[in-house]
């Protein structure tokens, strides 16, 4: 697959806050591959990002679906000049609401357009190709292979930083597997074995002359219908929960930022800054020492000497004279057969008897080969760390953290009563959102988990009566309805399909389907493994130019992206926003160099929720990226990326109303160049309530 894709233009027509606005890439220069669009808070950056993610993947929007679709459509509703105490236009002056992106795809220009209905209850996709217009999503094959139906991929490259720092959730197994399936061109095989082949066999079963009874056929058909219905329900729940999760994470980031802003706006800002720096450092030390102690405690050789030495002593005596029978027989048999003892003397009858006796005594069980490995390792085992010293260090660090927490609470208590109330309310919101996120993650895992062990571990809640006591899939209609896991539901479907094929007398066809599916799966596996291997190496190569903490690198990609430190000792679950950005940027570059797929990247609010000490990392990451990069920022982010937002590195643009005077507001326009970029200051507050 060769795809070179670049964004040329983005247009807004009567959506969010925009009247008719067009932004063009590299409008004023082409010295860099990066553009930065500045918009005041609340204009619609995040909504635009979400629209782009969905346009690329060909997903039409329907408010009835709820979840993210509803959230996006609500936000898209045009407010602009018809909102406020002195609206400048009335509804009749509005044009048709549209949002579009114009792309260069392998040298041809395509425009993907969202057309909204009047009440923003839905958005349909139209496509303007190089020569023809389509009232549906119609992009070239190279593009659809990577993007169509692959929202996870467009979410990966069009980055909403509010979702960063959540334990690398962005890189989970589902996202990465889907990405690789699409990129390696084997999605068609996956679809064939999971949908098309079962469908063909089912169709044949319906038409075949039955060898079983009509009643049995009717029953299994009904059971399969229940499976289909449950699958639809679970898939819908999963989709909704995934959207809700993004929204909750976004809300949480906003709430956390509101807390920061509330503290920053108080008279105690300097004190807060000092204590927060202390707290962050103390927290980091606690995290590091906790990891160290956890690793140390998991290793038995670090136990206090008096607890471990009895084990060590025991193994020095265990199987002292014994080796596996086959080895004893072969080794000592060879000595006897050779006629010369290991000391070099010719074997006499007396020696022969002696060796035979030794052989008999030495002949132990086969398991001794494993025991000798254990013996060797126990013998070599020596404490690697002093766990008591580690524990004392950790205790001291916990005390420092508690002290910083107390200082922070002390400062909170000095705020005026209104701020204190707001802070308490925000704190409660934060806790509620954290709980909501945990719950959504648990539900998503329940519906989507494909690991047999994990599924069976949770069988009471996840499978109910849909698993029999012998751990086989159940088939009763009532039992199937209790299944809450899509993977298990598929096992039930497979069993029922087999049964149906048998009743229909088409077992041979069913077996042929199994064989073809197995071949497809094998091909998929080989292709995916190869791609994973290449991409891992390439991503690591690109990652090495980013300034990663602890020389973080990719450990594996088969269970989502797992990271490990440079020493290969600590696996890392989460990452800072800067680290996540570096991984995404490296992955995008690796994809480009490995499979000739060059795609644009957009980053919304690159500094949002970031501690000042992380900003340099983000700047380095942006600076090291070689493909098309579009940043969408709001006013106060300008001062946070001073080394990146400079001439030669990015081309700036500002979307603004030249007059913001109430009752006399002008329409939105885009202005280009450093003068306007540096001098623009939006009137009114840039308050967090308006962040979008």
């Amino acid at each position, binding site marked *: 697959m060769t795809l070179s894709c670049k964004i040329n233009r983005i247009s807004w027509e009567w959506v969010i806050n925009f009247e008719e606005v067009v932004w063009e890439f590299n409008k004023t220069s082409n010295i860099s591959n990066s553009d930065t669009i500045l918009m005041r808070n609340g204009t619609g950056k995040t909504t635009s990002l979400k629209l782009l993610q969905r346009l690329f993947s060909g997903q039409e929007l329907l408010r009835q679906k709820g979840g993210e679709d509803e959230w996006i459509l609500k936000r898209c509703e045009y407010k602009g000049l018809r909102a406020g105490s002195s609206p400048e236009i009335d509804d009749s002056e509005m044009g048709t609401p549209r949002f579009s992106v114009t792309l260069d795809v392998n040298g041809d220009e395509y425009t993907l357009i969202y057309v909204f209905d009047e009440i923003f209850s839905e958005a349909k996709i139209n496509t303007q190709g190089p020569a023809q217009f389509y009232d549906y999503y119609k992009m070239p094959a190279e593009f659809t292979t990577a993007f169509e139906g692959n929202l996870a991929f467009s979410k990966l490259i069009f980055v909403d930083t509010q979702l960063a720092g959540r334990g690398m959730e962005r890189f989970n197994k589902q996202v990465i597997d889907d990405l690789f399936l699409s990129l390696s061109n084997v999605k068609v095989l996956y679809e064939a074995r999971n949908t098309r082949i079962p469908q063909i066999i089912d169709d044949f079963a319906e038409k075949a002359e039955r060898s079983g009874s009509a009643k049995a056929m009717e029953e299994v058909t009904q059971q399969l219908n229940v499976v289909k219905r449950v699958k639809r329900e679970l898939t819908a729940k999963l989709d909704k929960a995934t959207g809700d999760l993004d929204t909750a994470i976004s809300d949480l980031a906003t709430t956390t930022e509101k807390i920061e802003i509330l503290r920053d706006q108080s008279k105690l800002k300097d004190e807060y800054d000092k204590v927060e720096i202390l707290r962050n450092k103390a927290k980091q030390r606690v995290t590091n020492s906790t990891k160290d*102690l*956890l690793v140390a*405690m998991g290793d*038995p050789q670090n136990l206090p000497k008096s607890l471990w030495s009895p084990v060590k002593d025991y193994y020095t005596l265990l*199987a002292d004279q014994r080796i596996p029978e086959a080895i004893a027989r072969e080794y000592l048999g060879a000595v006897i057969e050779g006629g010369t003892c290991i000391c070099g003397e010719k074997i006499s009858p007396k020696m022969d008897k002696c060796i035979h006796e030794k052989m008999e005594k030495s002949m*132990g069980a086969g398991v001794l080969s494993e025991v000798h490995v254990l013996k060797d390792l126990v013998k070599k085992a020596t404490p690697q760390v002093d766990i008591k010293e580690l524990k004392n260090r950790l205790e001291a660090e916990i005390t420092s953290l508690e002290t910083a927490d107390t200082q922070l609470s002390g400062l909170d208590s000095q705020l005026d009563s209104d701020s204190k109330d707001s802070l308490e309310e925000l704190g409660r919101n934060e806790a509620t959102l954290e709980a909501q996120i945990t719950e959504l993650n648990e539900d998503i895992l329940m519906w989507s988990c494909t690991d047999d062990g994990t599924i069976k571990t949770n069988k009471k809640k996840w499978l109910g009566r849909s698993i029999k006591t012998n751990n086989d899939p159940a088939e009763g209609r009532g039992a199937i309805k209790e299944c809450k896991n899509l993977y298990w539901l598929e096992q039930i479907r497979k069993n029922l399909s087999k049964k149906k094929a048998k009743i229909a007398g088409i077992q041979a066809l069913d077996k042929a389907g199994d064989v073809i599916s197995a071949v497809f799966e094998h091909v998929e596996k080989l292709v995916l493994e190869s791609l994973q291997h290449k991409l891992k190496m390439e991503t690591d190569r690109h990652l090495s130019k980013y300034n990663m903490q602890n020389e973080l690198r990719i450990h594996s990609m088969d269970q989502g992206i797992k990271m490990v430190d440079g020493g290969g000792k600590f696996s890392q679950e989460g990452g800072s926003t800067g680290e996540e950005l570096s991984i995404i940027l490296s992955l995008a570059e690796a994809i480009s160099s490995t499979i000739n797929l060059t795609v644009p990247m957009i980053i919304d609010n690159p500094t949002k929720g970031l501690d000042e000490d992380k900003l340099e990392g983000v700047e380095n990451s942006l600076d090291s990226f070689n493909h098309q990069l579009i940043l969408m920022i709001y006013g106060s982010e300008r001062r946070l990326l001073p080394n990146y937002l400079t001439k030669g590195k990015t081309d700036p643009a500002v979307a603004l109303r030249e007059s913001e005077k109430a009752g006399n507001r002008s329409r939105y326009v885009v202005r280009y160049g450093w003068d306007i970029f540096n001098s623009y200051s939006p009137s009114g507050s840039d308050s967090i309530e308006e962040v979008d």
Partner: protein
Amino acid sequence: MSEESASEQTGYFRFDDNAKAFVKKLKDNPESDNIGTQIEFYWLCAQLGLVAYSKDASLPKGPPAGNEMHGGWAGETRKNQFLIRAFVMYRYLCGKGFEDIHEDLADDIEAAMDGFLQMTGTNLTIRGMKELDKFAQKGWDMIHDGGKGISRSNSLSLFLCKYVDLLSKFEN
């Protein structure tokens, strides 16, 4: 060769539901660091049980069916699995009356080991896994201590400090 080892066996470790809930409690606390995988906590419990056994030589029953845990060595236990097996087999053999090793006991000891170790999966037979389950249960019972134990800790850092203290009580 004993009957159990005639063919390689597959099974799941079993772990008390309350112990699993403790891992989840830490995971749900955004202020706490996390135990990487459930089996890493299972091993911490088992290690405590193995150490504590030296004092009272008592073992509870392992958790019944329905408490299966996502199988196999994972996280740090993958790296430490040899010493883990060595430790639990030491206790198992001592419990079988092989505290002192004599040449003439060699066949009996090896038969016991053969029923305990295998060459695939976790390298423990189902008997071996069940034995480790009992030590994990013993350790968890001490950690939980009827709701008054160190499992009341809300963060991994506090828990680990208390765990080291608890373990140290068994030093000579």
